[in-house]
């Protein structure tokens, strides 16, 4: 087991890019390698030691034996754990854009807020964010039509706009509230939101399921009332209580399921 601890000593105004500092790349790096490493900042590279104090303990045979701990406010560190396939990254602070983007395995925990694009095009693994995220969590690369396709994102705080855009697999669980257009263009997968949703969940969705335990502001006209279900089972998970089930988005002949908590959304009954 190898533990790599990076403690922030100077916050750069221009974001650092950490796409090369993932367990798959650094599992055989010694302390010297980190000290000689130059991290991309803007169009240049600067020594990693300008920004972080380093500590490396133990050895690892492969990426799955690596644990990276980032201490401090990483609100200007982009691409944390981008494309990682194994190992663990813990961020004790905020994370910047693209945290956990394109990851295929392993685990990332952010003990703070994450900026936009957390878990973009995620294919596997687990991303847990103790705070909130902003827009496009679990989305596609802009312009692409294939978003997150596997793995699990757990959000303890709130989600921003267009959560799970073009979702084609995997699971997103939001414990807080969510802004507009959750699950837009989704074709597969599951989104669970425990808090309130402002408006329009599931716009242009073709398939997959969205379950909302809180109150919904505005429902899209593209959703057709299906039935009232009690204790539904969705994607092998059981939920207790009464839910209003809608099917949509009919504009795309979609067969997606939108489950709304019946108690909280009585006026829709």
């Amino acid at each position: 087991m190898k533990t790599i601890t990076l403690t922030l000593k100077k916050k750069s105004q221009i974001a650092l890019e950490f796409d090369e500092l993932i367990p798959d790349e650094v599992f055989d790096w010694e302390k010297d390698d980190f000290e000689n490493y130059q991290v991309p900042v803007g169009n240049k590279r600067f020594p990693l030691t300008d920004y972080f104090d380093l500590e490396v303990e133990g050895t690892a045979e492969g990426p799955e034996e690596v644990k990276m701990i980032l201490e401090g406010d990483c609100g200007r560190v982009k691409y944390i754990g981008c494309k990682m396939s194994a190992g663990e990254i813990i961020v004790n602070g905020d994370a910047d854009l693209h945290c956990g983007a394109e990851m295929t395995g392993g685990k990332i925990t952010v003990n703070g807020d994450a900026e936009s694009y957390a878990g973009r095009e995620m294919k596997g693994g687990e991303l847990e964010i103790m705070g909130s995220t902003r827009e496009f969590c679990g989305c596609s690369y802009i312009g692409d039509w294939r978003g997150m396709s596997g793995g699990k994102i757990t959000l303890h705080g709130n989600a921003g706009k267009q959560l799970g855009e073009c979702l084609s697999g995997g699971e997103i669980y939001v414990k807080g509230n969510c802004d507009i257009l959750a699950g837009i263009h989704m074709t597969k997968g599951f989104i669970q939101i425990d808090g309130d949703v402002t408006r329009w969940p599931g716009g242009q969705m073709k398939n997959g399921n969205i379950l909302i335990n809180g109150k919904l502001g505005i429902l899209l006209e593209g959703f057709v009332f299906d039935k009232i279900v009690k204790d539904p089972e969705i994607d092998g998970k059981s939920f207790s209580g009464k839910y209003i089930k809608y099917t949509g988005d009919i504009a795309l002949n979609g067969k997606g399921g939108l489950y709304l908590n019946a108690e909280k959304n009585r006026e829709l009954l």
Partner: protein
Amino acid sequence: MAYEPPVTDYDEIVENCTCAFCGCNCDDLDFLVKDGHVVGVRHACRLGASKVMEDMDQRLLVPMIRDENGELQEVDWDTALDKAAELIAGAVRPIFYGWSETSIETMKHGIRLGELVGAVLDNQATICHGPSLQAVQNVGYPVATLGEIKNRADMIVYTGSNPMNSHPRHLARYTTFPRGWFRQRGRFDRTLVTMDPKYSDTAKMSDIWIGFEQNGDYGFYNAIRAALKGKEIDQDYVSGIPKEVIMELAEKMKNVQFGALYFGLGLTHTLSKQRNIDMAIEMLTDLNEYTKWVLTPMRGHFNVNGFNIFMAYEMGFPYGVDFCRGYQRYMNGETNTIDLLTRKECDVFMVIAADPGAHYPGGAVKHLAEIPVIQVDIHWGPSTEIADVVLPGSFIGVECGGTSYRMDGVPIYMKKAIDKPETCRDDEWIIRELLERVQKIKDEEAALASK
């Protein structure tokens, strides 16, 4: 408005010039020239004419550098270009913003410079039709040229746009009033629909006005699509519009022969941004099962579309292209000018033929005031007040020729009508000079490093 007598005191008429104002790129203008200045413009709208006609009182005429007292001081071209090249070569996160009021020929050198130093190249789409470009990447783009609309369209829809104020000749020259091959009676053969929360000047002259509530665009188009699929709408009002009106409108849109939808910033900059366009395009896809429908964004500047077409062709992405890692990247919120400025990441900003000082949000302008700004422009404006190096360019379509793209993607060569002021230079020359000077600095740095 007071009566203005026609201009009769001129030396010559330069015919078939192109207007350098909005995305209509009207190419039927006649400039009335006297003593090397444009004193009158025929056929143009008031906006275009006032831009083309003389405004020498605001014209930037000499290169300037801001001194230590904060005053802009006149310098020679070599000094100004060297100073600008030095700033660009030393930057860590430079942005080259603007390009929409200059020629494609200038952009050619701009891309090379951006690639050389690892800059972000962005244009006004980042604050106007960027969401449209994102939606087009997602769901495609049923497009027609303005000529086809003129000859064929029998229903014109303007949504989130007020062309009577912003593109005055759009209705007159291309869409609503002209007599086309299949629309011999002009206005009488067409139905004009405006969808806008405001009862705008365009709405006032429309046959149908749909005043949906602000931020309700996405829900409204979704309801039209549901109606097109044969669903009886459940809610009595969708986005503030009665369901009967929506059903009736869907029926009308289904039964036209050729429909054209034009959308503006009212659609791109409400709550659901790119998804409004996404939804509107998919609505047209549905309508195309019954009849013909096309759409075009109402582009603002005369060459804002040109930059997007040129960048998408050369680099694969239409705007906000980031070269900092040596290859091109594009990501909303990360490689766009406003985000880089409000996050205070940018350290050198070059503005070419644009006025961020006037158009950007406060936080972004505040950061601009703190960093070195290089301005390549023809007019004094709010951006000049925050600029550290000012390089006076020339007026494309009046003082020098150049290629631009109309809003529907038709390239138009804008010809030269008069000579530029002696102390000014062409934009193309300025950017090429900067490229050569930055290249020289980079070569020297590389030679030093190899030693």
